[in-house]
Structures are given as structure tokens and as C-alpha cells.
């Protein structure tokens, strides 16, 4: 089945002729060669395929391609502005909020969505907001610190 699916991806228009029931994850990785979005579990349980759809965190392994019709999709490749990292990318790097790096793209995009929805979260709100993201290396403490630091830079609370 061929569908025509159009959306904006990392600021650029995309038009695809493909089956709209395919999952966004595989379309990104295979058709569009944006491999920063990772497969981790295929059931929406780990968060490593998280992307932004209209600013909200979405598990790309669970999202039909057709569901992003007409929407704005941002993957990890579209977060930096040229050579300038997004503040959360910078903070993850500076705080050592990553080890193997495999969960990192989904983690960062999850954090972007979290701070968009709540620019000044408490520590508890950060923990709850990131709870659905798995990291096996154990970078959690530093990831929370990175998110707190960005929130604080923007005038948020640092508690």
C-alpha cells in the first residue's frame, strides 16, 4: 500500500511515497538514513527511539508514519543549530550524562520535551519525567544534573 506522507523533518519538508502504517523509527533509519534514532526494544519500553513531534516526545518505534502527516518532526540530528549544540546536548556532554551513548539521543529529546512542557521542574519532576527512559550504563545522576543545569540557566529552580 502506498501513501503520500508529507511532514517537516528537522526544519525541512519531506515527502514520502510509502506504506503509512510503517513505523516512524524504521522510516527514519532506513529510508532517510537518520540513524541517531535508535532501536532498543521495539515496544515503547526503553525510550531510545524518542523523537519530537510538534515539540512532544514520541516513541518512534510505536508511531505510524501516517501519524506525523503535516507535523514537525525533530530528531537528534536536527537539534543543534549548525555547530552550536542545543543547551541540553552541551549539558549532557559537560556533566558526563552519557557512557555508551546509545540511549543518549532519546534521553536528550525526552529532556527537551520535558523542559518545554515545564521549564522549571523540581528534581522530583525531572526524575518522574525521565522515568520511562532506560540507561543501562547508569548515567542517571549526571543526566538529572545536566537537565537541572539547563533549567537553572534559563532561570529555573536549582533544587
Amino acid at each position, binding site marked *: 500500500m502506498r501513501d503520500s506522507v508529507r511532514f517537516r523533518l528537522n526544519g525541512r519538508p519531506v515527502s514520502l511515497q510509502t506504506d503509512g502504517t510503517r513505523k516512524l523509527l524504521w522510516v527514519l533509519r532506513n529510508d532517510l538514513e537518520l540513524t541517531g534514532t*535508535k532501536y532498543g526494544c521495539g515496544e515503547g519500553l526503553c525510550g531510545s527511539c524518542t523523537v519530537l513531534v510538534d515539540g512532544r516526545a514520541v516513541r518512534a518505534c510505536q508511531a505510524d508514519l501516517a501519524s506525523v502527516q503535516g507535523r514537525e518532526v525533530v530528531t537528534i540530528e536536527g537539534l543543534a543549530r549548525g555547530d552550536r549544540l542545543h543547551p541540553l546536548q552541551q549539558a549532557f556532554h559537560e556533566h558526563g550524562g552519557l557512557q555508551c551513548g546509545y540511549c543518549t539521543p532519546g534521553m536528550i529529546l525526552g529532556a527537551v520535551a520535558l523542559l518545554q512542557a515545564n521549564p522549571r521542574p523540581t528534581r522530583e519532576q525531572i526524575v518522574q519525567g525521565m522515568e520511562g527512559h532506560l540507561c543501562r550504563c547508569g548515567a542517571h545522576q549526571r543526566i538529572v544534573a545536566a537537565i537541572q543545569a539547563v533549567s537553572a540557566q534559563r532561570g529555573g529552580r536549582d533544587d
Partner: protein
Amino acid sequence: MTDATRIGRRDFVKALGGGILVLVSLPAAGLGRDAEAQGRAYPTDVNAYLHIAEDGTVTLHSGKIEMGQGVMTSLTQMAAEDLGVALTSIRIVMGDTASCPWDAGTWGSMTTRFFGPAVRAAAAQARLILTDLAATRLGVPRTALSVENGVVFVTAARSRRVTFGELARGQRITHTVDERAVLRAVREFTVMGRSPKRLDGPEKVTGAAKYTADVRLPGMLYARIVRPPAHGATLRRLDTAAAEAVAGVRVVNHDGLVAVLSPDWETSDRAVRLVRADWDVPAPAFGTESVFDHLVQAAADPRTTESAGDVEAGRQQSARTFDVTYRHPYVAHAPIEPHAALAEVKDGKATVWASTQAPFSLQPQIARGLGFRVEDVRVITPYVGGGFGGKAAGQQAVEAARLAQAAGRPVQVGWTRAEEFFYDTFDPAALVRVVSGVDASGRLTLWDYQVYGAGGRGTEVFYDVPNRRVRVYGGRSGEGAAPYHPFAVGPWRAPGANTNRFAAEQQIDAMASAAGVDPLEFRLRNTTDARMLSVLRAVGQASGWQPAVAPRRTGRGRGLACGIDAGTYVAHVAEVTVDRATGAVQVERVVCAQEMGIVVNPDGAKMQVEGCVTMGLGYALTEEVRFEGGRVLEANFDTYPLPRFSWVPRIETVLVPNDDLAPQGGGEPAIVNMGGVVANAIFDAAGVRMLRLPMTRERVLAEIGRG
């Protein structure tokens, strides 16, 4: 990794034209005890490690791989330090069998301990040679020269200088030295002992970092392999007609390895579900709970790894004896990146990209699978998305290579999470029985330790016990007592030590409690090992330890555990709350004191401690692979809970300095105490002994109910 992973070392040298080739006419002493233990040595030729290009760019070649543990950064620091260049002027190529020096595998916290010295020796040797060449160029004796940031200059006249790049320019120099280079001393360090940001950080936060499943080749196909429902199952009937009818799909069969191939993963995944396969599954002989009896009954004869005094005499001297059995289930590695490989087989040669901890041991495995010579197989290791010992085996790489050979096209094999749980080489189920004793004054008198299934790591007795014996049954794999385990088992972060410290440190704790002595005081009284005393005192101080006899049964508790792993001494204090109504355990704070000799990158070392503490909460509290015979009952993270953000305690790490000792292991030691320290804290909080891992809320609640 870097674009240099795409080309061979010879091509690399050719591409750069000149460069300094260095020959060292020295014995290999010091280059790699790890390698020697494997019957193979690290190369003595400096060129195997380092290449200095005309523009002064240095390339470091490492058979070790980067899987999150940070050795890309720490190895570069070591090379930069002893070569005398800035960190930023070194590029590193890792895990490419065509361009990197042979290595047994990245495990055992051995990179810094054993490969590190080889890198430092090579770098120091190269610095000596470059200084030698500069002495000729500048017409001064070598002793008049200094090296800094890739520049050799006359110490007394800085303007008389020549760069490494200039020394290398446009020529191919072979230089022989007969002198052993001296490594920089700790007080001279400018790159080591500091904490630069991870070199892999920028690529990993932008999505630019390539993992195996991210590599693309023209015409590549994605495989989904037909899998049995249980280990030990045999195929009775196979019908692939419906799968083959799907547009774009091919089914290949390489000596019983049956796979569906197509140009996109989803199509292959859909088609493989149309394959009809009937399997004969043998009746299960044992399962999740009955495995422990099996481990004891089927065990091979023990190895006695430690023996002193007389255990019978020890019984006589004991005012109280303790006979306790501890159990550890199968535990999965569960890296977030599942195993993946991409293979291209062309003109009698194979190139395989693989998520692996052991590219050089994959080479012969793949060669056997294809009927190739080892030298016709090249393994390239992109970034690895977590290993923990689980990427030491190479099944997926052999599968990809065989399918690529059958298909005549490049093939990617990327395991699903269910395949990951099925084919993981689990941390084995194990049972420990300890009989110990203490005299009326609180001195240890007896330690009779038996372990089945976990192996001996972490069993060494650093307490002063006059009468002791340690017996290790069956190693980790049963050693001939087949079938000891119903599926593959293998190394898992500090293999065996998690089981053994869980048992030993609870046993010690139980004796301290019975003797009415504070747990820290009891340990300090019963060991004279200076390094152990130093980490025990450090963790006591950093945690604000106040003497008290456990258990206090207030719902809040603190525990202590200590151990030795990979040459490193480590002690933990954990503070927990136990909900007596639900059995839920929350670990609120963990303080870890670690003495690991010279620390190459203190912040990197702390990251490893934090990772160990966090990962350790999983095997301590929830992780358990349930099974019936060869049938694995876990398939995804919904039934196999990993530690999450809300579980993570405040983690504080104290690195106890010891610059008199070469760098020791850092990737594993801090995980070995996690089972024991949490169990001891639960005991203090609730007065119950948790003898079976994981300490789930159901098990804690059951123990509270029994107490």
C-alpha cells in the same frame, strides 16, 4: 568511530605518505601481562600503536573498543602524556583488526591495567626517538632537549625548536633505539590524572556516533532469522512459502541457519512471522527455582583455591558458628543496543562490522563459519552500545557473515530485544554455602566457603581467619559436567564476584551482629590488609558512619560491604528505607570508597563507579531471568525491570589516593558489593536476612512476615 575505521592501516600510512617508523630492539617486558596470559603478546613494535603524520597528527591504534567505559578518552590521555603532545592532536582508531594491534578482548577491567602500559611504553619510546632525531637536527645532545605539545626544543633556548610533524615530514624513517624510555612520573603529569571531557561526547550528543546497526552499504539486506522457541529444540518441519511470497523477500538457508532477507527491516520482520516451523522441545529438567539443586548435584569436583589451618580446629575455636546458603539467579546483560552485525563477503574476503567486545576473537569464529582463512576476515568495531561482558561472544557476527555469503549481498543482522534475551550469555545461576565461626572476643576463627556455578572471582579471603578453605565447584560453565546450564552463560561485569561478595559480606555482617559489634568495627578488627583498611576508613568517614550494632529495625538502615576486584579495593555504605507493608526497598544513598592506584581520569573513574552502583541495584533488587528448561520467559523490559531514574540513590565517590601503585581496574570493582551492601542495609532496617537474589519486594515482604 572515526573515518579512519574505514581504511586499513597500510592504506592509512600510504595515504599520509611519510611518517616515522620506529623499530625498538628491546625485549617485550612490560608490554601486556593480559596478552601473555592468553598465550599471545601485545606487539613490541611501536608502529603497531602509533603513527605520526607529517602535519603532526598522531593516530593511536587500539585493539580495545569503546562501549561506554571511557577508554577512548583514557587511552588517548595515556598516549598524549608519554608522547608529549596535546590530547587534541591524537586520533584514535579502535577495534579494527586490519589496523589495530591484536587484543584478546575488552573485558575484565584490563584496558588501563594491561593495554595502558603497552600504550604508554610505545608513546614514551616514540618520544625518545623523536628527541633523538631532533638532537641530530638541532645539533645538541639529547639531554639538552625537552618535549612539550608535540614540539622538541632546547631547554635553555626555547626558540631552537622542531615539531614532531617537521621531524616526520616527507620521509620514511626507520630508527632503532637500544634504550628503554622512561615513563613520565606522576608529578610530571599534565594530561593523565586530569578529567578532560569524554572525547566521544560530541558525537554521542549529536547522533553522529555510528553504532553497528547504523552502518549502511549499497545493496544491503536486513535479516530476520528463524528462531527456536527454546534452547535445545530441534526443527521438525519448515515451510517458508508464505514468507517467500512477500514482495522483495528472499529466504536463505546456510546449513540450517534460515533467514528472511529484504531491503528493509520491517518487511523482513513481517515475513519471518509467516514462516511455519514446527519444533521438538525437550521436556524441561529444571527451572528458575529448581536450578539450585541441580547446580549442586551436577557439579564437577571442586578446586580448592585457598586453604590454611584446619577447619575442624576452627569449629572447636568458635564460640558460634554460622552455616548459611545464598542463591543468585541467571541475570541478563541487557545493553540498550542489541547485538548487531553487518557483513560483506566479496572476492573471498569478508568484512564484518560488529557490536563486539572482542573483534580479534570474532575473526577466527567468522573464518570458521565461512570456510575462510583468518587473514581474509576483517572485523571493524564501531561504537558499542553497552557490553558488560555480553558482547564477548560473536554469534550475531557469524550469522551475518554466513547469510552474506549465502545471499551474495551485504547482510545486517540486528537482534530484536526478544532475541537479545534469548541468546544472551547470562550471568550464571549460582549457590554459595558458607560455614564460618567467631570466638567470644569477636575474632574470626573459621571460614569454609563453597561456591557452585559462579567461579572463584571475589572469593579471596582478605579477613584474617586462621582456619579457612575455599572450594570452587564447576567454574562458571560446569567444566565438563554438561549440561550444567540450560543455555549459554558468560562473563557479566566482574564475573562471579557479585555472587561471592553477596554471600561473603552478608556472612561477615551476620557474625558482627551476633557478636554485638558494629559492622565497620568488626571488619577493621578482622583484617590487617592495609589497602582494605584504607577504603574501610575512607567510606566510614565519607558516609558519616556512627557506630551501632545491627539490626536496629527502624525501617531505615545502613549497610557496609567491601571487596577486591581487578586489583582495586572498594568499600560501600548504602542507606535504605524498607516499607514493612509492601516490602519495597528504596536505596537513598550510596557512598563508595575506591583505591585503584594511579587514577588516569578521576571523573571517568567516578562515572564507572556510578554506573556500577546503578547497574548493581538491578541485580540486587529486581533482575532475574526466569526459565523452564531451555525456554527463556523474559522477552522485553516489561517483565525484566532495569534500574530507573527513581531508583537511583545519591551516589558519592571517594577515590582514595595511591600514586605508588600502577593504575588498577575501574570498570567493575564498584559493582561487586552492591548485592551485599543493600542486603546488609535491609537487615539493619528490617531485621531480615535476604539470602536469595534479587531482593524483590515480594521476597522482602515474605521474610518480614516470617520474622
